[in-house]
């Protein structure tokens, strides 16, 4: 199959019926693998990794903190992408996927913030510090809240999809601006995002690395969170599609009845 044909085939899933049928088929796989990965990763990390010489046993928190933080940001990126698809191609499934993803993003942001605070208490000696990274996540959390509130407030589903999509675009720009602003405003305590850095993986960066022994279970956890995110988005998008169909059917009943 040529690339163009493949791309065309991808758009087929914008058909709600096809989306529902396909997601129903693949969902069990995602549920099972995601839960398996998270269980394996967390048990491995919790029971079978040593304590860090500096952070002690609190290092075990990264198996939750880092994947949740990654998903919190990637969830917003996914919403941005699906919002663009909705604005350009008018596929309802795309807009509904963005709506379905937002609460997942809220929970992920909340996990990242809470585990961060719990970790910060013994490490920095305070529950909360106005560190740029923490502050950015707090701002991201506010953006999520506004986005969800706007969806809830508007009755007409197409108008809601349009307005939230524009808000998502504008919000993304301002979220990035806020990130820079916050960085400038306070240089911060938080260590750099060392996990994904090549130096950390190869172990050459001795200063801020997450060494291999912690990295592999963390990787399993990240994969698990990604799979869980996919499963939740597919499942919740299905729910949104059905809710939207109920609304359309009821409206039609009113018009004809």
């Amino acid at each position, binding site marked *: 199959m040529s690339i163009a044909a493949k791309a065309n085939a991808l758009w087929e899933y914008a058909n709600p019926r096809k989306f529902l049928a396909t997601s129903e088929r693949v969902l069990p796989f995602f549920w099972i693998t995601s839960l398996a990965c998270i269980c394996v990763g967390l048990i491995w990390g*919790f029971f079978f990794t040593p304590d860090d010489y500096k952070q*002690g*046993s609190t290092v075990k928190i990264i198996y*939750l903190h880092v994947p949740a933080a990654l998903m919190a940001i990637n969830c917003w990126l996914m919403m941005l992408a699906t919002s663009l698809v909705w604005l350009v191609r008018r596929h309802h499934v795309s807009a509904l996927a963005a709506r379905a993803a937002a609460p997942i993003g809220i*929970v992920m942001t909340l996990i990242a913030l*809470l585990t961060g605070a719990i970790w910060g208490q013994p490490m920095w000696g305070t529950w909360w510090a106005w560190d740029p990274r923490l502050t950015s996540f707090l701002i991201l959390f506010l953006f999520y809240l506004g986005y969800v509130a706007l969806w809830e407030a508007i009755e007409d589903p197409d108008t809601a999809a349009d307005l939230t999509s524009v808000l998502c675009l504008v919000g993304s720009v301002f979220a990035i601006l806020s990130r820079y602003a916050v960085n400038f405003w306070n240089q911060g305590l938080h260590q750099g995002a060392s996990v994904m850095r090549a130096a950390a993986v190869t172990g050459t960066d001795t200063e801020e690395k997450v060494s291999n022994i912690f990295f592999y279970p963390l990787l399993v956890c990240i994969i698990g969170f990604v799979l869980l995110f996919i499963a939740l988005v597919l499942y919740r998008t*299905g729910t949104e599609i059905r809710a939207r169909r109920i609304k359309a059917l*009821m409206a039609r009943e009113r018009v004809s009845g």
Partner: protein
Amino acid sequence: MIPDLGKYADAVLSSYAVSIVLLVALIAFSVMRGRKVRKDMEKVEQRMSRNG
């Protein structure tokens, strides 16, 4: 069973508890709403097909 977490046991255990509770709540809430909406849709569809 539980490894020695030293003086940070509270921090580690509470962050695991908080995260797992939040994740389970998210999944449970999603599934509950999903089931309900699915049932509602079937009801509405049946009513529509009966009434033409």
